[in-house]
């Protein structure tokens, strides 16, 4: 099988801080690939570079035969993404959010409407299609985002900590669906998670990143053999150490704190 993602010597610096330090890896077409690492290890920064949201300081990326820096729109057509934080418009209905996405990705009207219905039925939100997204629970929002990420039939689906805050039922349902999609459509899945069990069960191959560097790659078994441990969690801890990582508060956290302090805000 050919490589759908090829990353060579990728580096990203923010001022003096090196978030991603000279990493190289490949993901094969049709593979389920997990990207693991402690907080602040460089996972999200890497995903942002792969998905054209950030430009790399140096190094090269080839995604579905295109370079995200030189040809961002071709790359954007080829992937769907579910971000770590919700990225839906709360003031629009579930259906409108998908319709908006479909128009941006230039999917012809008839096909768009058909796919929206199929996907919303699939994630079991069709009967809530006219509800505003702000009335949805976290799990419902996640499902809607997955539906949205798949609407334009991407070759690769990026999932940045997709199961965070979801109950086991929803998580299970979601992965069953995604694995099915991976088998039937051959869609490549690239995800990050903090649930080692999930990574071990779902991912065919795993890369572990820490301090901006990839420190190990392989299947869950390979990583366990390499570290002489009996579970991926132990292997992960052995590789990355037991120190708890500090992560700087991002702007959203600051804003939320500010709003709480002012006594206003619904979130």
């Amino acid at each position: 099988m050919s490589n759908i993602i090829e990353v060579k010597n990728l580096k990203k610096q923010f001022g003096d801080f090196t978030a991603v330090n000279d990493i190289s890896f490949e993901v094969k077409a049709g593979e389920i690939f997990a990207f693991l690492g402690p907080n602040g290890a460089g996972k999200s920064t890497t995903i942002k570079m792969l998905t054209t949201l950030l430009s790399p300081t140096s190094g090269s990326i080839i995604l579905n035969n295109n370079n995200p820096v030189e040809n961002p729109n071709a790359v954007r057509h080829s992937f769907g993404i579910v971000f770590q934080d919700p990225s839906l418009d709360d003031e629009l209905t579930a259906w409108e959010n998908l319709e908006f996405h479909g128009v941006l990705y230039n999917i012809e009207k008839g096909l768009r409407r058909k796919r929206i219905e199929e996907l919303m039925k699939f994630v079991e939100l069709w009967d809530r299609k006219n509800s505003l997204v702000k009335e949805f629970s976290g799990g419902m929002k996640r499902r809607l985002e997955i539906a949205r990420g798949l609407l334009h039939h991407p070759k690769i689906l990026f999932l940045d900590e997709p199961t965070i805050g979801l109950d086991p039922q929803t998580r299970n349902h979601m992965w069953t669906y995604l694995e099915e999609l991976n088998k039937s459509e051959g869609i490549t899945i690239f995800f990050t998670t903090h649930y080692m069990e999930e990574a071990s069960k779902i991912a065919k191959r795993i890369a572990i990143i820490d301090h901006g560097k990839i420190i190990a790659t392989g299947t869950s078994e390979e990583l366990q053999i390499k570290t002489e441990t009996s579970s991926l969690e132990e292997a992960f801890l052995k590789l990355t150490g037991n120190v708890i990582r500090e992560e700087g508060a991002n702007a959203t956290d600051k804003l939320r704190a500010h709003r709480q302090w002012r006594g206003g805000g619904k979130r």
Partner: protein
Amino acid sequence: MKTIYIMWLRELKRYLRSKSRIVGSLGQPVLFLLALGYGLGSTFQKAGQGNYIDFLAPGIVGMTIIFTSIFSGIQVIWDRQFGFLKETMVAPVSRFNIMIGRTLGGATIATIQGIIVFCLALIPGFRPQNWFMIFPLILIMLLVGTMFTALGTAIASQLEDMQGFQLIMNFLVMPLFFLSGAIFPLSGLPPVLVLITKFDPLSYGIDAFRILLSNSGVYSLTLDISVLVIITLIFLSVGSYLFSKVQI
């Protein structure tokens, strides 16, 4: 084209759904209109300047437009905070079109608010000299709205969070409003103030409103429109450039 349309539609839907925003943003102009209109009306009249409500109404329409449109532009920060900006940034469309769509949406909303305030000004007795002037008036409202939404977007593209919002209100929007001749005549001012008002793009907008509504501007309509068009184009280019450089 589709991108511009769907971005415009989104802005409009959001606006029409938040009734509190519509009503809330009308409070201030109505207060200005009534408090200043009745409060200073007799003094204005005694100074030989005529009916103050007739003078004030176009200024308050301008105020509504600048406040609404800058606020619409600033919404970029809100979208960044709550994630929706990412959805538009990974979409395979040009960021220029996204910015234009947003800006036209903001301008449309500002114009609707402007028309509502115009209608409200009829209650305390404001009357345009010629009702047909409403049509060119709406076009100029759109132009002023586009100009300030683009400015708001340009500023918001440079800001990480809403903390800078007060700064923008106090050091940009308020001065632009107070120094525009919205609430006092531009004739007979101290030379420094005259100079400042000449650099305030809002004064040309309000001057155009006055020419159309009560035939009482200080510049000519040609000058007003030329300045507005040029400044709008500048703000649009700067705004779309800065917006295209946004990294998340």
